[in-house]
């Protein structure tokens, strides 16, 4: 087991480098420059800029510099935000995204899991139909619609919650709900499906036949197997939640990492893009590793060599 974890942890480094390399190549292929704007620059000024940022050097020199920096975990300075280092920017914006992301995920897990389990146990009941319809509603209402409607009701009519900006606990309610609703819907549906599958399987029947209490059957046996699809989905979901979600951040004007990252792509801010990509890919791989390990705990039949 420990051997397996160590091996996986070690593969993260080359993989992150592959991701960074591919991304770097994509940035090079993408048209436009970080300095281009509605006003075309005189060639002399463009030349000055290219010289200042080393863009006039051959590609392999530039690539070498990028990799050299990243290996030292120093992502350099942002091109767009003059004088701000990428490390500071990530450090500054991560807490906002993480707070909202983790809260939203907790909300989603609590609501989604319980709704999914109950719906599976009472299959074809009113609760089952009701909660599944509700979750479908949550899925078919995109967050760019849900957010503004929540704002309209709670901020502009009732004036009880702030419409935007991260100003304290009360300002967290709307973004967390907007973000969490979709994930809750996902989880509820996947839990229900997974549970239904498991409840019919032989080992649950065996467990029931052994005369175990319904509670033990459910919590000790069924739930473990039933939430495997949810767990598979958790790795990427958590990583993307930590990275922030662009829509929610823009609608509520929250200084998270998601909007920052998307803007950096639109701005062609190479160091920032590479920094965030490296950071996120490592996060994603760590989360996926945790997910893979938890498979073994959830279902003892899954083994890793």
């Amino acid at each position, binding site marked *: 087991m420990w051997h397996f974890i160590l091996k996986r942890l070690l593969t993260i480094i080359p993989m992150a480098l592959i991701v960074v390399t591919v991304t770097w190549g994509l940035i090079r292929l*993408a*048209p*436009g*420059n970080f300095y*281009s*704007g*509605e*006003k*075309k*620059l*005189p060639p*002399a*000024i463009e*030349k*000055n*800029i290219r*010289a*200042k*940022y080393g863009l006039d050097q051959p590609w392999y020199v530039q690539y070498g510099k990028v990799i050299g920096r990243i290996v030292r975990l120093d992502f350099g*300075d942002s091109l*767009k*935000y*003059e*004088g*701000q280092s990428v490390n500071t*920017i990530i450090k*500054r914006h991560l807490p906002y995204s993480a707070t909202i992301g983790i809260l939203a995920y907790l909300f989603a897990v*609590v*609501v989604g899991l*319980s*709704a999914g389990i*109950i719906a599976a146990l009472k299959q074809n009941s009113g*609760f089952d139909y*009701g*909660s599944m319809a*509700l979750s479908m*509603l949550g899925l078919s209402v995109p967050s760019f619609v849900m957010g*503004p*409607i929540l*704002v*309209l*009701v709670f*901020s*502009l*009519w009732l*004036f009880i919650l*702030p*419409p*935007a*900006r*991260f100003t304290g606990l009360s300002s967290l309610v709307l973004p967390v709900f907007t973000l969490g609703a979709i994930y809750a819907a996902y989880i509820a549906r996947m839990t229900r499906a997974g549970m239904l599958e498991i409840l019919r399987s032989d080992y649950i029947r065996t467990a029931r036949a052994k005369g175990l209490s319904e509670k033990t059957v459910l919590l000790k046996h069924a739930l473990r197997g039933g939430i495997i699809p949810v767990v598979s989905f958790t790795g990427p979901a958590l990583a993307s939640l930590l990275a922030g979600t662009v829509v929610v951040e*823009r*609608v*509520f*004007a929250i*200084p998270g990492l998601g*909007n*920052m990252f998307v803007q950096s792509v*639109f*701005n062609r801010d190479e160091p920032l893009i590479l920094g965030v990509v490296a950071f996120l890919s490592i996060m994603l791989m760590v989360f996926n590793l945790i997910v893979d390990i938890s498979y073994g705990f959830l279902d003892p039949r899954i083994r890793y060599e």
Partner: protein
Amino acid sequence: MSQKIFCRILTGIVLFSVGVVSIGCSNAGNSKYWGKIDVPKEDNLRYITGSEPESLDPQFVTGQPEARILIGLFDRLVEYHPKTMQPIPSLASSWETTPDGLVYTFHLRKDGKFSNGDPIKAKDFVWSFKRGLSPELASRYAFLGYDMKYGEEYNSGKSFVKKNGKFLPEDPAGASLDGCDLSGPKCLAVVTDEEGMKELKENDKDTASRIEGAEFVPVTADNVGISAVDDYTLKATLKQPAPYFVGLLCHQFFSALHQPSMDKFKKEWMKPENIVTSGAYQLESWDPYDQMTIAKSDKYWDAKNVKLNKIQFYPMDEQTTMMNIYKAGRVDALYNHTVPAAWNDEIKKFKDEYLLHPEVTIEYYTFSIKKKPFDSIHVRRAFSLSVNRANLEAFRKTIKQTADFVPSIFPEYEKARKKVFAELAKKDGMTEKDLEARLFDPAQACKEMKEAGYSVTDGKDGKCKVSDFPLDGVELTYNTAESNKAVAEFVQSQWKQNLGITIPLKNMEFKTFLPYRSAIEYKGMARAGWVGDYMDPFTFLSQFYSPKNDSSTGWWNPKYDALLDDANKDLDPTSRFEKMARAEYMMMMDQPVIPLGVAGTNWMKKPYVKGLYPNPGTMHPWKFVYIERDPSKWDHDVDKIMTEQSDPAVDAQVAALEKTQLDFEKSRTELTKKESGEKDAD
């Protein structure tokens, strides 16, 4: 337990649905103001300025969001007039120019101070201007300093050419025995690196042969035409007359910067704890993507007239979010173009809050005039004539229709243009009505298409159907934005209705679009917009100046350049504008672009915010802004805020500032009168 949660969610959902339905029914029209009015307790203004500022280096940034903050932090020789954006005295109490328009002398006020108490002297400006031009800084706005002698040469890393111990002049005919004098304007300077030499050899064989065997002396900062005569007198020498020069100096690029702190802190100089500013405000805090607070600087020379203690800037990207936060009473004013066009009918009812005035901008479509089918002037004219601009104005609501390139916000230029256009049109056999019909004339458009050789079937109301227009490879490309899309869809429908031609639309992400347009790779037409850098028509006309111009159309005419050069040498504003209008007429008759409209300011402010005017560039000198707690003195009917409803207190404040220059000019005229009088007496 989960059932409880679900009940809550259910209640929530029901609430929204009820909400959504009742919006349709509810009408907030009875209230005088849009949303909550929450007058701040202190003299603090909360303002939304657009995207997150890139930097606080006035010579590095290019965007308007930053500019609005920076003109509060850094003072310049001249300040924007809060209404017209024409220059008014600031750190320079007065200025004068030589009759040839080549040398400007600025008289600095003696009480100018940085936020740390250091006096602001002429040498600070010299250092700051040279810094902006230095190739190492690589400022994107360095071209603003190109009017100063050798500014461009220094910024481009060029070298003077020395042969036999003498500098070569730019004009071979002007060679004198002593060689070129560097203190005079025109000495030859060339790029000496490999690439530059190669280009010279290919494109300019004469110069290439002239410089053979010469030695090169790099142009340095010392050669740039800016110098301190004494502590409080600054002299700027230009390479050619530029009557707009003083107006240009309002731009944040020409701020007074504090050299010692910038040298000391290097990269960290703009941190709140390090930064030394020269303006009415200093930086208090900066939380990127969240807020920035600037606080009044008590060292500022005009501190007694600065009324706001603090200004909080909130960076935001989403229009609806800004509107929400404004409606909830959590900000006091918004920046330009923040009200979605579709909301206009609703919002314009709030006459005390909604500001719509013309801007110093132009929105247009460019033609790729070197490629078929828009290489034909008739086709270009037909496409311009067949857009019903009155309908565009009615639909977009926030733009004013135009068929000309220079927006009609320069009253003096407007007069000159009317006169010149009428005169020239007459020569071309057009009436004034024809000139006006350029805004929309489908019948004429059909005629032009016929003249271009297409088969045209006439329909009713002057409309027609062109059957053989080649659609292959013709598109209208625009960069992704809600407003661009709406305008493109409208214009597309116009061509369809009036010419029977359906031009495909293509949107592109901004940075992909830019090189595509500027390299004129686009097929047929592309969207463009231009925001003036200073308050002079030249900022628009220069778009088409020089063979390597920035118009992205491929259009150029040496006669056009000659007309503009001639105009700029003219110190009389009226005849200068007339010459410029001639140039504009010449260009517009070739129709390399389809002018569509001039954007309006389109923003809102709470009625208690006073001294904030909808000027053409949405640049607010913050020292005129204040918060009025007495509701009887609040702004109302802000459509007239620039005229009848103007605030006398602010007007008086501006007048007091303008007085130093007016007095100076008066004393100068009296002096010359006296001198000439004395001469006459002789």
